[in-house]
């Protein structure tokens, strides 16, 4: 393999950049600050370019449905048309143009908000189906959930002011402890991964960039 095709070069690049960020954070060197700012912007631009990777696949996926006339293909056709139109308008007008604002306000915005809100129904039916006083853990979960539901609704404290007190206590003591335990554990995981990447021991993110045996 030619030397410039070696994986180690890109891994070295990764380590170098991480080190620059760490040094910049701990020492106040103006040149380094400018470098990290530039690198940060670059990361963003690369991410923006990468969007095409998924975009192409999405087109292929729905395009194939139309081509093969699989059941439900008219919906896929509508998707392809809608995507193409909005993409072209977006390229022409930019994100803040009149038509784009219309598409956002009339379609994307309400659809996004509605899907976000639909979770309430799934939560209610999940609670109805599964919240049963049948095991220790489900009883704990259910009791705490009831207390919080009553704490958060004004009626809870009208019925009994204790709901507010207990609910706040649960948030401030046991739940805070658990959140803290999880934060500590997760931080360890992230730092460990960071170290592996920094030391060039973790390179699974490079999968698929090597020479492939067919």
């Amino acid at each position, binding site marked *: 393999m030619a030397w410039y095709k070696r994986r180690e070069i*890109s*891994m070295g690049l*990764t380590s170098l950049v*991480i080190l620059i960020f760490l040094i910049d*954070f701990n020492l106040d060197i103006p040149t380094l600050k400018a470098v990290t700012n530039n*690198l940060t912007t*670059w*990361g963003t*631009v*690369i*991410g*923006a*370019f*990468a*969007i095409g990777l998924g*975009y192409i696949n*999405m087109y292929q996926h729905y395009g194939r449905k139309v081509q093969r006339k699989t059941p439900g293909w008219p*919906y896929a056709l509508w*998707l*392809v048309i*809608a*995507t193409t139109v909005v993409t072209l308008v977006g390229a022409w007008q930019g*994100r803040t143009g009149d038509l784009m604002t219309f598409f*956002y306000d*009339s*379609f994307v915005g*309400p*659809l*996004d908000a*509605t*899907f*976000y*809100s*639909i979770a309430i129904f799934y939560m209610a039916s999940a609670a109805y189906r599964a919240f049963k006083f049948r095991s220790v853990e*489900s009883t*704990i*979960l259910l*009791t705490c*959930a*009831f207390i919080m*539901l009553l704490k*958060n609704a004004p009626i809870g404290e009208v019925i009994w002011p204790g709901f507010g007190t207990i*609910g706040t*206590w*649960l948030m401030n*003591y*046991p739940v805070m*402890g*658990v959140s803290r*335990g999880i934060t*500590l554990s*997760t931080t360890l995981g*992230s730092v460990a991964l*960071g170290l592996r*990447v920094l030391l060039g021991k973790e390179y699974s*993110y*490079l999968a698929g*960039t090597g*020479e*492939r045996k067919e």
Partner: protein
Amino acid sequence: MAFGLTDLLIIVCTLSIYSLLYKNNPFSVWAEHTFVGMAQAYAFAIALDYIRDYAITPLSKGNYWAIIPVILGLMTYFRFVDSFRWLARFPVALSIAVGMGVSLRAMIQAQFLSQISATILPLFVGGDMMATFGNIVIVLAVVTSITFFYFSKPHEGALGAGSKIGYYFLYIAFGVYFGNVYMGRVALFNGRMGDLLAPERLYVSILVAAVILATVYILDKKKLLAKSIGYES
């Protein structure tokens, strides 16, 4: 406020998604496809804006460094070209490094040391039983929930007991989170209802809801739902 095309579309989109709650139907499938396509087109427009603001504009102002991310960005696509696949490594390597660099640098201080020092609480507070009890609970919850995530030894004996307590603490947290999350979703649902029930939209909303419900119900009774969306739901 006058009633316009946007108002009608908001109502149709919102109610089409909610119709999913009955069963998958032509309206919900239409909304799904509209959403997937348009949202992606939107993400694309956002990406174009990035590229314009942070690559093209600086380049036109004579900042030639800005060509580097453009080249790196284009290199992502070499994953699909067998003999140049190795080129795709560099943009990925740089993205990972920037992401890690930015998040790691403050993490140890902000999320590790400071959280430990905040947990260092006296287990006995003179004259205040509640504070004493509360502090004991916090320390116990932190220590046992960490124990729950300990993997190097089987959970037996003291470790087993600790992790079991940690497990129950996790379920307390699940319950409390449920209460909070549910409140949030109610608020979101309330936002949608507010949109539907605004005075100028109320009657149209009722009409559209009736049309959607009736259509779906009839299609369901006539066993035409599967045919209309292309699969059995």
